[in-house]
């Protein structure tokens, strides 16, 4: 079956890793959507900021732990700033207005990066050793693939515990079900939103670390394409609930990786066309989400 489609194990494992990373981005986008009803088109620019932090740290010769720390700090600071200056004032506007607003923020941040670092970008090389392959029963697997899958699994488990077993997690779930009712019952809106933004930022930082290993050259449009693909995945999966959104992110990353490996070389340049044609098809068949079952309330 696999051989027919010209897919080997290596492609399959890489596709799983890409799906895992996209799943994490999907969670980051989905968490903020849950509490603010805001689709953050500028999520990729958080990842880009983290990647530039890593590149600067490696340029300055900082040790890896310090670079990763700087990456987390930069992404967190930027996401809190976004939250204060843009997300909060936009609260309550229609999802379309908010999507267009974050579209503007994305372009703004990209231009700031262009001004600051130039169009050629910088290289984050300090973690490049993770790109070397290890051989597992005859299959060459890059170390980052394993690291990514494990890291994403850990993040998702932690997130599950956070959402299901803590008070703030309960508040967040309540807020994403019905924000107004949750507020009336004593959930503090500002705290829940800040918390969602912080967690979403932390996830962006994790994604930044993993993407820079795969693509060490960091340019101002770093992670832009990934964000577009993940956004499509999240909407395809089902925006209203975290698990369908995550599955949607995973599915589109996996499909992207698999198609990239399976398409013959003379067709691989048309990968985006195949991918987005599939997106349109799924949206037409199941506009409320591929992974949403049962009765859902139309919110968007």
């Amino acid at each position, binding site marked *: 079956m696999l051989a027919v489609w010209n897919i080997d194990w290596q492609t399959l494992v890489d596709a799983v890793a890409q799906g895992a990373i996209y799943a994490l981005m999907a969670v980051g986008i989905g968490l903020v959507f849950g509490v603010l009803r805001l*689709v953050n088109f500028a999520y990729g620019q958080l990842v880009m900021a983290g990647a530039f932090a890593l590149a600067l740290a490696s340029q300055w010769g900082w040790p890896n732990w310090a670079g990763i720390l700087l990456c987390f700090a930069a992404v967190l600071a930027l996401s809190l700033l976004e939250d204060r200056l*843009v997300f909060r*004032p*936009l609260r309550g*506007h229609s*999802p*379309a*207005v908010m*999507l*267009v*607003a974050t*579209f*503007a*923020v994305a*372009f*703004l941040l*990209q*231009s*700031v990066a*262009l*001004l600051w670092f130039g169009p050629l970008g910088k290289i984050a090389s300090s973690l490049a050793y993770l790109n070397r392959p290890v051989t597992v029963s005859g299959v060459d697997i890059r170390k980052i693939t394993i690291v990514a899958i494990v890291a994403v699994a850990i993040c998702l488990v932690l997130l599950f515990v956070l959402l299901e077993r803590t008070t703030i997690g309960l508040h967040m779930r309540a807020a994403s079900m019905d924000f107004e009712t949750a507020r009336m019952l004593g959930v503090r809106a500002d705290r829940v939103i800040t918390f969602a933004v912080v967690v979403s930022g932390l996830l962006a930082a994790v994604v930044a670390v993993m993407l820079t290993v795969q693509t060490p050259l960091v340019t101002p449009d770093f992670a832009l394409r990934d964000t*577009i693909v993940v*956004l*499509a995945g999240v*909407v*395809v999966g089902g*925006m209203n609930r975290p698990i369908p959104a995550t599955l949607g992110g995973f599915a589109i990353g996996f499909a992207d990786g698999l198609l990239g490996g399976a398409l013959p070389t003379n067709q691989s*340049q*048309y*990968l*985006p*066309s195949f991918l*987005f*044609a599939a*997106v*349109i098809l799924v*949206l*037409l068949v199941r*506009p409320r989400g591929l992974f949403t079952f049962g009765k859902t309330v139309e919110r*968007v």
Partner: protein
Amino acid sequence: MKRLLVVQELVGPAVLVAAAGVLGAAVSTATQTYFTDALVKVAIVVALYVFIGNSGVLSFGHISFVALGAWTAGVLSVPRTEKPAIMPNLAHWLAHREVGNLTSLLLAAVVGCVAAIVVGIPLMRLSGLAAGIATFAVLEITHNLLRYEEKVGPGLNAFSAVPETTGLRQATLGALVAVVAAFVYARSRFGRMLRATREDDAAARAVGVSVYRQRLIAFAISGLLAGLAGGLYVHLLPVNTESVYLDLTFITLAMLVVGGATSLWGAVVGALAVSALDSYLAVAENGTDFLGWHIDLPAGTRVIVVGALMAVVLIVRPSGITGGRELRLRRRAAA
């Protein structure tokens, strides 16, 4: 009296466009380019308004129709003798065809319209975020295909050798055609029915309006205007796939939103105001003097300022600087 008010809604935007054209004729040739570019942007933004403004449904996909219009007009206008050099892999049936300026613009509009109908038939069922993402997918697919399909165009290269016929006069006329078409559509019963679905979907359905059909009609008209604008664009500057992709989508959406998406007046004001700001910043990036101060902004400031402006307008005045209303010089007396 009432008829006079209605006419204002057409005359206001049209006079503004004409004024930009006249003003452009009075300035130096270098500055004139900015006016021509702004007027082509007016045509694109008015095309966006016809669909987004009247339906309230977001579309990130209209630049695909601009791109298809540009490709149509471009491929057919490059002189036959130049084609092998610029587009060596062009399909046989295109390689020997060459049409005049006006024909190329008309064909661009037709292709934009047909593409919008083909895309719209499946997609007009969607609303909200699903519509936003699906139209984005259309943009991605068009960009990807035009970039690598060298049978229908220059692929990764720019459209050089297209006759530069889009001067100030053609750009002004093009923008006026778009404004008149948008006005006529908005005043027609189709436009009214579509706006009814925007205001209250359920109520519109209840009185027998087919949301799907009304959206499709608007989408087709809007695709036609976008295709025409694309044709004008390729006759203005050497277009490549990147110049009809995300950046143009961003700037035209910014213009529509800043002006006020729900009115023709807003679309025209937004397009001209943001163009003026953008052009001024472009000049300032190369160094200029303003009231005795020497200004030399670093490259890239334009997008930062326009992006910030768009975000601020959305936060402070989500219905745009015109409030999304048509121009009314004389307010109705309070009852």
